[in-house]
């Protein structure tokens, strides 16, 4: 076995020290490198059927797990959706002269956006520094954009609710109602971009559908709030909204999971599975109750509304937990990326590296082509 050509003696080191030039791994044998297929790491989970082989570092995750608390951040998503959609409902109720629904929606919107802000600040590692969010305007950060949206929407929702409650300054109240209704949908939708703009596979890979899941979940919750708080003679619009938003949420969620492929597995495991199942049951029950008897029976209307609100919260908790679970298992990071890499390599071998891809680092071109990898 050839080692370094240096000898350590009582007089110190003799001979040449190869340092960074050391030819590690060269030996007496022929010059062929060994095959270098990925060594399967130690698995922590049971092997699934059709599980592709993948390499990992002792089964440890590639990603760092989100530090967010589910109660705070999923709660923040849920409350933002409830508030944003409720503001639109409030404007609709105001225009159509439904005073009970209007009051419920305005107070609900202001209350839930306030709570959502509390949840967001509570989750910060340094809550006192919350205002640093407004230090910059940064399009690449949905959280920054959302903070600016909140500074517009929050006061608008608060003024609308205060005017509704006190009867003071009705003109300002109306203006605030309109403002909140315009910004509200953005409040309900932007959190989807926030959660998808991460490396977490079960969040990022759902980015095509997530905004639609989030707004339909928000609309479902707002419809629930209306059913809960408005008198029977006023609840027709929210019954219709529930009938559309609830099923839409469930159907789009299914489409999202279907599109994600194997990365959707965490949605069917652990806490995510429980929350999502609870969400499905509550949402369907709420929709059914609202459509079947929400018009005649005040109690059933209220119960259906409560079920829709709870179902929406469970949806966010389910999605949140699915993401966390997907970050804890290296396979959801490694397998899709490996697949993508192999497909690209196969395409490159077929056509040869194209001009764009071939422009590698200076002097480094051709050093890591698959043909060199043994």
């Amino acid at each position, binding site marked *: 076995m050839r080692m370094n050509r240096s000898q350590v003696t009582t007089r110190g080191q003799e001979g040449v020290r190869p340092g*960074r030039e050391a030819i*590690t791994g060269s*030996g007496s044998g022929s010059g062929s490198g060994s095959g270098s*297929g990925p060594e399967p790491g130690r698995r922590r989970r049971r092997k699934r059927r059709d599980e592709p082989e*993948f390499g990992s570092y002792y089964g440890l995750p590639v990603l760092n797990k989100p530090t967010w608390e589910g109660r705070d951040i999923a709660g923040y998503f849920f409350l933002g959706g409830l508030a944003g959609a409720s503001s639109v409902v409030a404007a609709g109720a105001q225009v159509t002269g439904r005073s009970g629904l209007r009051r419920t929606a305005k107070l609900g919107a202001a209350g839930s956006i306030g709570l959502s802000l509390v949840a967001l600040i509570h989750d910060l590692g340094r809550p006192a*520094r919350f205002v640093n969010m407004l230090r910059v305007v940064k399009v690449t950060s949905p959280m920054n954009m959302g903070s600016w949206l909140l500074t517009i929407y929050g006061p608008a929702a608060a003024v609308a609710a205060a005017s509704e409650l006190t009867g003071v300054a009705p003109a300002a109240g109306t203006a605030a109602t309109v403002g909140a209704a315009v910004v509200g949908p953005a409040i309900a939708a932007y959190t989807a971009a926030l959660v998808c703009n991460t490396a977490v596979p079960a969040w990022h890979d759902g*980015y095509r559908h997530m905004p639609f899941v989030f*707004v339909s979940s928000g609309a479902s919750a707002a419809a629930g709030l209306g059913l809960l708080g408005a008198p029977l003679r006023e609840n027709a619009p929210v019954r219709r909204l529930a009938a559309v938003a609830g099923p839409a949420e469930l159907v789009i969620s299914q489409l999202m999971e279907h599109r994600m492929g194997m990365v959707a597995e965490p949605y069917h495991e652990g806490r995510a599975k429980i929350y999502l199942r609870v969400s499905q049951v509550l949402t369907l029950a709420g929709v059914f109750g609202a459509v079947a008897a929400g018009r005649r029976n005040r109690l059933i209307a209220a119960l259906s509304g409560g079920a829709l609100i709870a179902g929406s919260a469970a949806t966010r908790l389910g999605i949140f937990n699915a993401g966390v679970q997907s970050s804890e298992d290296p396979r959801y990071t*490694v397998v899709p990326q490996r697949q993508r890499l192999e497909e690209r390599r196969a395409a490159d071998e077929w056509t040869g590296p194209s001009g764009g891809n071939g422009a590698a680092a200076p002097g480094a071109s051709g050093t890591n082509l698959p043909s060199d990898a*043994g």
Partner: protein
Amino acid sequence: MTPVPAQRADRRGWGLFDAGAFANGQQAAESSGHREAPPRMGFFTDTSVCIGCKACEVACKEWNHVPEDGLVFTGMSYDNTRGLGSDTWRHVAFIEQRKSLGSQTTGAAARPVGDPGEPVRLRDLPASSGRATPDRLGGGDDERGFRWLMSSDVCKHCTEAACLDVCPTGALFRTEFGTVVVQEDICNGCGYCVPACPYGVIGQRPGDGRMWKCTLCYDRLGVGQEPACAKACPTDSIQFGPLEELHERAAGRVSQLHQAGVGEARLYGHDPNDGVGGNGAFFLLLDEPEVYGLPPDPVVTTRDLPSMYARAALAAVALGAAVMAAFSGGQGRRCA
């Protein structure tokens, strides 16, 4: 409220439909608004000469006052550090494999065939003068080979850094050296950078609440010193310098190893056309990246953000339309 120049210019040319604005990974600092920036500095970690001494981990901790990160015993290898995080900015991975390193043979290959789980007894091994070769043993090197892969992992200081992109406060910024650093007096611990990083580098420090990661020893670079880990590395496995120079050196090193029969040597993170626009800290690996706990083909999530915003806007419009329809629908019927 005034945008800090470094942040505002960070994505020059970043329109809603024009993400990934960096044409050349070398110009990370210029693209962030630094005028007359020094050359982009980085690390080339050549794992083929890493001996797993962990001097880099220690030097990093000492220099940067990084607190203790849990005195755990993993039982999986010589690695009790597990991975990068708020309190681990250099992490030495140990991988034990039953395959040979290049065409090297080990003493362990010379033991008589027996139960693989049976401990090796020294007296069964041939004298060191008797060179053990696969030919003499008549066995394939797959069964008899054994190698340790050791690699010192670190923040990649991506050209398109997701942590920097998503940071809502501008605490994360691009330095004049093209590196990515957290400003500890600004970070409010929102945690967005943690799930954004495709490499699992940055973390939240318990009891402190803020986010921490490798700074590529920003303070040392400022006075012309090399980072503590590179300074401490006894085998020059961690090489520090202008990125362009390191790329050339790495290319030479790969061909040197290939000529010596180490066909599995390959670079990782050097390509400015990869999913993160190339890394400021890149590696020479002897196996697939995932074996070292690295993602095989990471893509910065911000590349999809224009599409996410477009879809969120569409969804918001749909929400408004659905509620309006719910109020206007059924006007012909008797339901109000």
